[in-house]
């Protein structure tokens, strides 16, 4: 009983500061693994480690701050966030800065900003808000409207072009609609429609470099020194890791720099090379735990908006994991999605942690309400 009381106290302390303990634990473990991997992947670069620490700190603060905000506030902000985000996306296409051959940045004089990052949260918020207006499961007309809400920003981002982010945003909205109870028959129909849309994408919407990525993905060995080089070196790194890996800091593919982008998009290859399949299973386990916890939070949420938003955020997190691991191991084309909370890099990490902040807000709000 005493232990129970202590436990209750502890929970209530975390509850008090709007933090979900299990989720926090999962994130901390993941980030620790990530920092170890980054130390190796950066070639023991202390400058990069420091910057990553700073980002993690900022991300934690963002998460903590957002966790304090009641979910109702998010609900009320949904439409505004979406509209502002949409306007900024249009602005990017018109006046955006070009970085790495794509227009992604909006320079607001005092801050450079990627509106697509805002949309990663604004889209699921908007769709969740819209769908939750009506009884679940949603009617076809609402589903069509929902898809339109998803499609507009997706296309705008794809045109920047940023295939990875548009994919993430599309999935975040679609997950919300799926979780709301879109009928299986309709899912089947939309899948068929999507299949029919693929050739249209190929011929009218995709840029040459994106097509090249897909072609390279289908046969990386066809261009071993050019576009296929990344994926071949990545597969060599992963494959040569074997069951037990080469050991921390011992990965020859990464330490000798055969692996490109080793500290960003291809950090999973470094991890696989140094820790082997054993390490990979542990890492997948950590991700699965976080996803499971997210879905539990969603399931326990009180209202439809919270459920849909929490579920969407969690499943989008999964998409990051799946797409990144899939692309570095040759299952998917290289689309530029980082390994969440492990890859070096700022913007996506802040967005992800903001998402977890909302998740924590939902997780802890519920308890207050039920009291």
């Amino acid at each position: 009983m005493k232990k129970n009381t202590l436990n209750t106290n502890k929970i209530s302390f975390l509850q008090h500061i709007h933090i979900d303990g299990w989720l926090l634990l999962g994130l901390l473990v993941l980030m620790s693994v990530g920092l170890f991997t980054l130390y190796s992947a950066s070639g023991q670069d202390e400058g990069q480690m420091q910057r990553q620490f700073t980002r993690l700190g900022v991300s934690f603060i963002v998460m903590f701050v957002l966790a304090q905000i009641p979910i109702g506030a998010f609900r009320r902000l949904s439409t505004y966030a979406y509209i502002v985000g949409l306007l900024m996306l249009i602005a990017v296409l018109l006046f955006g800065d070009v970085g790495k051959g794509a227009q992604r940045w909006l320079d607001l004089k005092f801050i450079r900003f990627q509106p697509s990052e805002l949309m990663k949260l604004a889209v699921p918020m908007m769709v969740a808000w819209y769908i939750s207006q009506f009884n679940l499961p949603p009617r076809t007309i609402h589903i069509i409207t929902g898809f339109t809400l998803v499609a507009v920003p997706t296309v705008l981002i794809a045109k920047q072009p940023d295939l990875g982010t548009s994919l993430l945003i599309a999935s975040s909205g679609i997950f919300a609609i799926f979780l709301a109870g879109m009928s299986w028959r309709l899912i089947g129909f939309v899948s068929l429609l999507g299949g029919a849309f693929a050739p249209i994408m190929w011929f009218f919407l995709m840029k040459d470099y994106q097509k090249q990525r897909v072609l390279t993905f289908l046969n990386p060995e066809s261009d071993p020194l050019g576009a296929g080089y990344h994926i071949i070196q990545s597969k060599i790194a992963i494959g040569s890791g074997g069951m037990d890996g080469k050991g921390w800091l011992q990965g020859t593919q990464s330490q000798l720099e055969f692996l490109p982008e080793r500290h960003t998009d291809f950090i999973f290859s470094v991890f696989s090379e140094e820790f082997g399949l054993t390490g990979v299973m542990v890492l997948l386990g950590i991700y699965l735990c976080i996803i499971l916890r997210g879905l539990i939070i969603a399931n326990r949420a009180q209202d439809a908006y919270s459920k849909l938003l929490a579920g969407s955020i969690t499943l989008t997190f999964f998409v990051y994991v799946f797409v990144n691991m899939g692309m570095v191991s040759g299952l998917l084309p290289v689309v530029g999605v980082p390994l969440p909370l492990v890859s070096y890099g700022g913007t996506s990490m802040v967005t992800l942690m903001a998402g977890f902040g909302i998740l924590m807000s939902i997780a802890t709000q519920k308890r207050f309400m039920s009291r």
Partner: protein
Amino acid sequence: MQRKRQTIRDHSAEANLFARRATVAFFIVVCMLGIVLNNLYSLQVEQYDDYQTRSNGNRIKVLPVAPNRGLIFDRNGVLLAENRPVFSLEITPEETNDLDDTLSRLSTLMAITDDERENFESKLKGQRRFKPIAIRTKLSEEDVALFSASKHLFPGVQIEARLARYYPYKETLTHLLGYVARINKKDLQKLVEAGQEANYAATHDIGKLGIEKYHEELLHGSVGYQQVEVNNQGRIIRVLNVDPPVPGKDIVLNIDIELQLAAQQALADQRGAVVVTDIKTGGVLALYSNPSYDPNLFVHGISRKNYAALLNSPDRPLINRATQGQYPPASTVKPHLALVGLEEGIITEDYTIMDGGRYQLPNVSHVWRDWKKWGHGKVNVSKAIEVSCDTYYYDLAYKLGIDKISEAMYEFGFGDFTGIDLYEESDANMPSRGWKRARFNQPWYIGDTIPVGIGQSFWTTTPIQLAHSLNTLVNRGERYIPQIIRGFKKADNSVDVLPLKTLRPLQFKQQENIDIVLNAMHDVVHGSEGTARSVFKDAPYQSAGKTGTAQLFSVGQDEKYDADKVDERLRDNAMYVGYAPFEAPEISVTVVLENAGGGSSNAAPVAREIMDFYFRDRVFDTDIAQVQP
């Protein structure tokens, strides 16, 4: 937010629906992660071997390591070709603080030429910045000392040492040893054809001439390998494994460097060649061709100017006269011809002719003259050799006929390669009917045969051929191929002597015939009328020989007619072949001097000087000797 709801929400049904969907979603997540895991299992477990190999292929590079070239020693262990470190000044651009500044400061230390700078900058463009680039390839000792003192001021600049061939005896041994120089395209092609390119992967130089070329395979050794770990730019991170190269064999020559130097000295500044051989083995004790040049010039790449000077010199220093120079043998072949005449029964020991200084064929108006205007009087075969009577040999040649002469002389080695271990050898020419038909599309005239008796008329030989044929005669038909290489130097400094190279011995009907000829050659030196008697007067040893004076001026194959030099080059070639000691022959000496005049007055003294040097420490019995039958 104030939107009015049309129906009352069933919260528990919605919660159930969401729970089902979330469960499905989680199931899908697990399935998809399963797909990822399955793919990783395939990469990391099923295809592990393949990817591990490819990973090692990325990082492990095998670098060839050049073997050290074998050294060359003379028969007494004197080093004739050695490997010396040469120093080059190299700059690693990445390690310098400021490349331009480094270069300008360096040029205040040692004058860097525009050529060197240009060369450096062109290499700089095509190379990784961590790879050292040479700015000066051959540092003088001064430069080395100068730079070493202020090395700390030049980060990224270092002195690199490499072994390169050095020939301490310079021009003395050039035609014999040859030299090595950088492997060029043609060499590379030959190596590829021989399947040797891997063995030469790290080798800088290859034998281009002489012994260095002929015994390249022995001297080179086999390549070693160094296994290194490299990064994606090819920078060496560490050495994993070393498979050391097998150095080339140290070879010992039959050459006696002191005798070689004596031969060089004896020739002084006269164009010509000297060959000294060991009669009992065919080993070449000395072989010198004058004029010569410094082979070290070629090792590091000869300048265009120097090379042009060598190539265009009217004295043809690039030709090895001892093996490539083609000279009419003149009277030096009279002993061989006499032997053939005796063997064929055309002449006997007692057969004599009356030499009136001229020889004519019946019904032919052409007169062939003896070198002695009024003739030698009554001459038998011995005297014909001793006084070098031409008329006797006109007659002998006429009676033998070209076919017999040609065949017999070919047996003695005339008109054929001796097989000496040098690629720079000419087979010269032993004329025959067939040869004249092929060469001039003309029949052989009887008038062509007569001068063959005194070693003229299309007949050319090389000094090494003369030496070889003399050895065969002195050895009574035993034939040893002249060899420069003697064997290999073993670790304990003893010599692993190679077996002698022999040819099928020549058979003679009458050993006495050989005695007649050899005794006559002894008379050349020691007889009362011998053509070399004055030159060898008071020599402490008994020797035998034959003088020769050739009336042509042809030198190597490429000789051009030079109007300014015509007078000098029309002078006779002086020749001498001899051996000693007469009773127990050890060495044969062959001397050819271009345009030097008479053989007895000019070539014989050179031979004597060499023989005197060879026997300098010996005490001989001064009784007049006769060859033992």
